[in-house]
C-alpha cells in the first residue's frame, strides 16, 4: 500500500533537506574564513540531489510510482576566492594577500529558506499520510 511508502519518500526528503541545511550552516559559519593559500581557503559546499527509485515498489503498472530523494554528494563551489591585500594579517602570504572564502551569504540565506519550506512541506505530507492511515485503520467504527 502506497500510503506507507509516503513515510519512506518524505523521510528521504527530510534527510536530504537536513543535509542541505547543514551545508548552509557550515557555509555561513565559514563565510568569513580566510587563508593565505588560495587552494586551502574554505569553499562553499552544496549537496547534489538525485531521485532515488525504490526497486521494491512496483505498485503502479510495474512502474516505480514512489521513490525518494538522496544526496549524491557534496560539491565545492569552483568560483574563485576573493583576494584582499592585508599584510598585517597573521595568515597573509609573502606578498601580503589573504584569500577570503567564496561563500555568497545571500545565496546561502535563500537556500536556507528554500530548504526550510521543503522540509515543512514534507512534514505535512507525513502528517497527512499518518492521519489517513489512522482513519483507515478505524474503518467501520
Amino acid at each position: 500500500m502506497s500510503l506507507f511508502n509516503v513515510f519512506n519518500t518524505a523521510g528521504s526528503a527530510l534527510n536530504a533537506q537536513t543535509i542541505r541545511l547543514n551545508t548552509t550552516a557550515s557555509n555561513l559559519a565559514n563565510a568569513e574564513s580566510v587563508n593565505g593559500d588560495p587552494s586551502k581557503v574554505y569553499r562553499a559546499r552544496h549537496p547534489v540531489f538525485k531521485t532515488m527509485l525504490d526497486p521494491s515498489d512496483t505498485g503502479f503498472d510495474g512502474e516505480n510510482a514512489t521513490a525518494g530523494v538522496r544526496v549524491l554528494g557534496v560539491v565545492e563551489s569552483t568560483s574563485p576566492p576573493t583576494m584582499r591585500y592585508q599584510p598585517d594579517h597573521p595568515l597573509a602570504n609573502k606578498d601580503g594577500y589573504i584569500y577570503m572564502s567564496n561563500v555568497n551569504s545571500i545565496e546561502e540565506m535563500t537556500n536556507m529558506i528554500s530548504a526550510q519550506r521543503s522540509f515543512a512541506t514534507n512534514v505535512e505530507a507525513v502528517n497527512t499520510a499518518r492521519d489517513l492511515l489512522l482513519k483507515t485503520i478505524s474503518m467501520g467504527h
Partner: protein
Amino acid sequence: MFDNIFGIHEQALLLHGQRIGILANNLANADTPNFKARDIDFAAVLGSSDEQLPLTLSTSHAAHIAPLEGALPSGELKYRNPYQASLDGNTVEMPVEQAAFSENNVRYQASLQFINNRIAELQLAIAGQ
C-alpha cells in the same frame, strides 16, 4: 449482495492511496534537478478498473484493426505539464502539487466516509434496531 458492498469506493480508496504516494514523491523531489513531476489520470485509471468506462473498440471481426497502444486512455503514470518550466529541468511546481495533495486527501477521506456509512448502514440492518 455482499459481492460489491462498497461499490466504486473500494477501488477509489486504493487509487487515492496510490496517488498520495505519487504526489508525496513529487513533493520530496521538489529540489531535485531534472526531476519530472508525475501524476495519474484519475478518471482513466478508475475507469480501467471498471469494464464499461474506458471506451474501447471491440474487435469482433478478423478484419478489425486493434487500436494502437496509447490511443485510448490508460492507467499509466503520466508526466505533468509545468506552467512555467524551470531552468534546472525540474517540473515540480509546489503550489500545484500541494493543491493536488490536499484535494486527494479530501477525496480519500470522502471515499472512506462512504465506506464507513455503508458499514454503519449494514450494521443497522443486521442489528435491526
